[in-house]
């Protein structure tokens, strides 16, 4: 084990997609590749963001993500914006590796500049951006060098809402509600219940949506150890795209006193 491996070993949550290259080619055995390190692409995320949650409502889409970038279990960066405005009608939210996310930000920015140069009235609508991102993600997983993210793309264009998910394997789906990371377990059921009990997104008002999102973010902060009570919320509706400054929700910890072993 080299020094970097020692640093990494056991320190990060390592996903179980594949054995590490180091494990497949033991260094102490004679090999035709002796002295030559195999090419090793990203095999685990380093600095990571946790859940992104999103839902459609009447006349728009809403998405939220907290501003924490964790270094393993360490809450390393507390002011990283994980919601990115792509166009006037689309927002991208990212779970997973922050550097890969920044790479995708730059890549999408280049795409937008290329598109604007045509200056012909054609714009990349949310479904077009989503397809492009899907292609990039699937291409990278096919090179065995995935971008370690789960993206949520939310948009509202020509009075049509779009909400789609694409991950490091290039898997996609579209839905009225989407949640990634821990949120897929904790928030998704809450989002679905909230939307379905109202009979669908067309019956969810913007006020409802804010309440639903904030309730989900509160639950996530209570139960996801990689989360932070400081998050941004994006609203994409007709002629409006707004990403809030980071803010917090009220939390209740009084119950802790009566639990043995919980705090003091």
């Amino acid at each position, binding site marked *: 084990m080299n020094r970097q491996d020692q640093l990494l070993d056991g320190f990060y949550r390592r996903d179980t997609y594949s054995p590490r290259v180091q494990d497949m080619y033991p260094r102490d055995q004679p090999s035709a590749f002796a002295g030559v390190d195999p090419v090793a692409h990203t095999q685990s995320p380093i600095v990571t963001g946790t859940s992104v949650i999103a839902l459609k409502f009447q006349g728009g889409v809403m998405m939220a993500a907290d501003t924490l970038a964790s270094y393993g279990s360490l809450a390393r960066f507390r002011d990283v914006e994980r919601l990115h405005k792509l166009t006037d009608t689309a927002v991208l939210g990212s779970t997973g590796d922050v550097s890969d996310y920044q790479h995708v930000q730059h890549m999408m920015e280049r795409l937008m500049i290329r598109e604007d140069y*045509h200056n*012909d*009235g*054609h*714009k*990349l*609508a949310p*479904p*077009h951006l*989503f*397809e*492009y991102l899907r*292609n990039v993600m699937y291409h990278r997983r096919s090179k065995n060098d995935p971008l370690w993210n789960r993206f949520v793309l939310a948009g509202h264009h020509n009075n049509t809402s779009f909400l789609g998910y694409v991950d490091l394997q290039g898997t996609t789906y579209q839905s009225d509600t989407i949640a990634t990371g821990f949120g897929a377990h904790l928030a998704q059921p809450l989002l679905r219940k909230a939307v379905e009990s109202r009979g669908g997104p067309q019956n969810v008002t913007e006020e409802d949506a804010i309440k639903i999102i904030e309730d989900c973010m509160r639950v996530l902060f209570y139960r996801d150890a990689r989360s932070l009570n400081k998050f941004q919320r994006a609203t994409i509706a007709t002629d409006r795209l707004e990403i809030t400054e980071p803010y917090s929700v009220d939390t209740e910890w009084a119950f802790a006193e009566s639990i043995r072993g919980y705090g003091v």
Partner: protein
Amino acid sequence: MFRNQYDSDISVWSPQGRLHQVEYALEAVKQGSAAVGLRSKTHAVLVAVKRTPGDLASYQKKMIRIDDHMGVAIAGLTSDARVLSNYMRTEAMRSKMLYNRPLPIGRIVSALADKAQVNTQNYGGRPYGVGLLVIGQDETGPHLFECSPSGNNFEYYAMAIGARGQSAKTYLERHYEQFAEASLEDLVHHGLQALKATLQQDKKLDTDNASVAFVGENQKFTVLEGEALTSYLARLGSTDAPAAAAAPADVAPMETE
């Protein structure tokens, strides 16, 4: 054999400031049979007259579908048209695969013009010998463009290319104000009347030699030929076509620049 000493290759200027080889290529377009394009607020239409080398041969097709939302009519060298339409199909497929977006018409026309222009500037090459009328429907509505071997491209309300295309243009110039609000049927009818004006005295439009294509917002690119044209041709026959009068010979040809 040569018109003058400055036309032996593509990149040599004449002292009058002309590129003769490019102008010859434009002549090749005029040798092809006529094609007419026109559009309304909802549809774009192409009509063309097909030629046959003789009674024993089939007619050479004039319409090429590029994608569900786009197609072209050609006048000039068919083989060059096949190269260009193949390129257009590739680009249309690329746009669908990469962005899930039908290729915007103006963009592919610009790309086509860039290809044509390169062939007017490189030593040893030759310009394409084909003119295209491109129709298509995209996010910004229906469109009609002309592409020529010189690398020029323009968007039009109505346009005609090919042999005696000037006669069709005269018809279009007289009637184009009605096109914007016209129905698809009326648009095709106008197109066929304009096309009729390009025919020689003893020739008629019939189900063998006529070709019609159209596209619109909720209308995939469709080519009509043969029996499908019967009703259109019947209507054409029953109208007194003022367009049948060809353009006066002393009228200067409309410049495409």
